[in-house]
């Protein structure tokens, strides 16, 4: 029992309440935003120390013993995920100070941001499948409003697609939960893992596995269920795009990793083969979509889809190396992808547009921003010595070691195509000539100093620093991911931690 596990949920809730109480004061809301996310980061570090020292941490809420009450569980995977969430929270809280306009602040941007983080953390922490559904909904309702907040035509159109597809996916998820309960009579994930192998009708278990794959697949935006993502993620303000693009789809990936390592391992020849195909197609279709677009944020949105494919592929390998690669890829991708979104926001502030053909001259006037872009883009494409290199390397190694040469080849090829669309952004927005029509401040407003752009640059520099740090010193993080993968492949550790010795 570790009471601290409740903090990553409680702190954002308290911050959200405070921000709601002081809705009229932009200053206080921003301050609470920073303090809240800072406190979250501290609490996560404290939990990390316990996880490092004593292994999986468990909290039985309300002191109800395991299969009856709701359990919060932090194994290494959940630990890494809440860690990256806290880092993203801090970064987005800083970026929002300048990026979010007063009107959105007045209409509840900050409370919603914290509720969103609460929902994400809850999804990572919970050890109960119905509770996971509830946290998903908490996260969804916050994301719905964040996406629609502002009511511009584009946003409404994006929100419509996002809302209805995600509502449907939640209902599919709920139906899957109902079937699990009908088969086993329990909702606790550890207890489910014990009882599912005892179910005689394995065909029905596979059916439920597919229901979960569809539901989480929609949330993670895998092929062929990804269409809502590129249609909506480029519409809200950049701070929101960044946290959506970085974090939200990864909650779906997390849920997929969780259920397909803990619950549905009875017929991996069937389920994981489907996952492998899904991963392959997701990679290819996503990157081709990115290649055909010329809007900064749309390209990035399609790349989210493409990168999700790598994570699904790692999961489908179902080996320690593959899952380690998938987890490392999730962490690296959250950093690189959010940073690219944040940079696109700065570029848009300077040039007044996201359209690549109307952009140009950023390298000439803002070389530092260009360097930041290069770091993140190269990390995304997988250049050594940045974080993406290690992520891709472990996945490729995992693929080769179980002799899946075709999909490994596809993964490498998609890496090249990623580089192609990053080059496209680089050639027009950064190296291109300064367009004829630019806002008056272009070239005059410095990145650091008057004008406040440095507030936007701080998060970008933090993340770029982390990307380089992870790239140059990947060993500690790789080891943590390996621990996480080993725990996932050996569910008895998880089960014993939750239910006690069997």
């Amino acid at each position: 029992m570790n009471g601290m596990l409740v903090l990553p949920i409680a702190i954002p809730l308290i911050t959200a309440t405070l921000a709601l109480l002081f809705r009229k004061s932009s200053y206080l809301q921003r301050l609470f935003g920073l303090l809240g996310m800072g406190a979250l980061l501290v609490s996560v570090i404290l939990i990390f120390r316990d996880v490092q020292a004593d292994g999986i941490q468990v909290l039985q809420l309300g002191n109800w013993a395991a299969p009856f009450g709701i359990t919060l569980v932090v194994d290494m995977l959940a630990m890494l995920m809440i860690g990256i969430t806290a880092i993203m929270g801090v970064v987005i809280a800083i970026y929002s100070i300048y990026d979010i306009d007063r009107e959105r602040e007045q209409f509840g941007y900050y409370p919603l941001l914290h509720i969103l983080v609460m929902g994400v953390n809850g999804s990572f922490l919970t050890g109960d499948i119905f509770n996971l559904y509830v946290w998903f909904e908490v996260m969804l309702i916050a994301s719905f409003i964040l996406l629609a907040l502002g009511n511009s035509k584009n946003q409404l159109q994006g929100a419509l697609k996002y809302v209805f597809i995600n509502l449907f996916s939640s209902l599919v998820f709920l139906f899957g939960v109902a079937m699990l309960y009908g088969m086993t009579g329990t909702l606790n994930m550890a207890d489910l893992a014990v009882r599912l192998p005892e179910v005689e009708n394995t065909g029905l278990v596979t059916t439920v596995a597919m229901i979960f794959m569809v539901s989480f697949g929609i949330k993670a935006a895998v092929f062929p269920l990804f269409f809502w993502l590129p249609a909506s993620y480029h519409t809200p303000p950049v701070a929101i795009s960044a946290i959506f693009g970085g974090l939200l789809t990864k909650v779906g990936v997390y849920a997929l990793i969780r259920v397909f390592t803990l619950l549905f391992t009875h017929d991996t020849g069937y389920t994981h083969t489907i996952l492998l195909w899904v991963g392959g197609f997701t990679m290819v279709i996503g990157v081709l979509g990115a290649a055909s677009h010329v809007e900064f944020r749309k390209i990035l949105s399609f790349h989210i889809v493409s990168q999700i494919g790598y994570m699904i592929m790692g999961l489908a390998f179902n080996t320690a190396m593959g899952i380690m690669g998938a987890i490392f890829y999730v962490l690296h991708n959250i950093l690189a992808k959010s940073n690219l979104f944040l940079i696109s926001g700065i570029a848009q502030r300077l040039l007044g547009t996201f359209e690549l053909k109307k952009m140009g001259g950023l390298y000439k006037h803002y070389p530092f921003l260009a360097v930041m872009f290069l770091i993140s883009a190269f990390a995304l494409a997988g250049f050594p010595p940045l974080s993406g290199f290690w992520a891709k390397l472990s996945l490729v190694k995992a693929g080769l070691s179980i002799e899946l040469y075709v999909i490994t080849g596809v993964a490498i090829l998609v890496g090249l195509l990623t580089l192609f669309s990053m080059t496209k952004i680089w050639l027009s927005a950064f190296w291109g000539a300064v367009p004829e029509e630019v806002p008056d401040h272009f070239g005059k407003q410095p990145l650091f100093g008057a004008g406040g752009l440095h507030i936007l640059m701080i998060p970008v520099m933090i993340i770029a620093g982390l990307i380089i740090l992870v790239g140059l010193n990947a060993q500690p993080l790789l080891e943590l991911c390996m621990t996480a993968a080993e725990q996932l492949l050996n569910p008895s550790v998880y089960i014993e931690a939750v239910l006690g010795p069997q």
Partner: protein
Amino acid sequence: MDTLLPILAGAIFATGIYLLLRSSLILTVIGIILISNSVNLALFSLGRISTENPPLIAAGSIEPISPFANPLPQALILTAIVIGFGLLAFALALAYRSYRELGTVDQDELLKDAEDTSAGIVPRENLENGGDA
């Protein structure tokens, strides 16, 4: 009841899917409502329906008189209904707002403009100039 409820849930689900596929936004919202209800019904029937004592603990004793009915599916459905209600309220508000802003509830019309303004797929000649704009 054991056979009737699943069939009913299936029929409502199918109706919901049909409505989801229609082009009017209002029908889509109603479709989601129907699917939500059918999933709740499915949850109810998968929790096994039985005619036993209510799961109430009489004064002085520490457990209900057995055999007692399983209260958990109802608790789950209650939670699901509350959540569904909140999401539905938002979906309706969004549909109304979209109607006010965009002047139509036909989804083909609603989403048509998006391709033009947000620069989805652009004509080929623009792509080729993209590099040196």
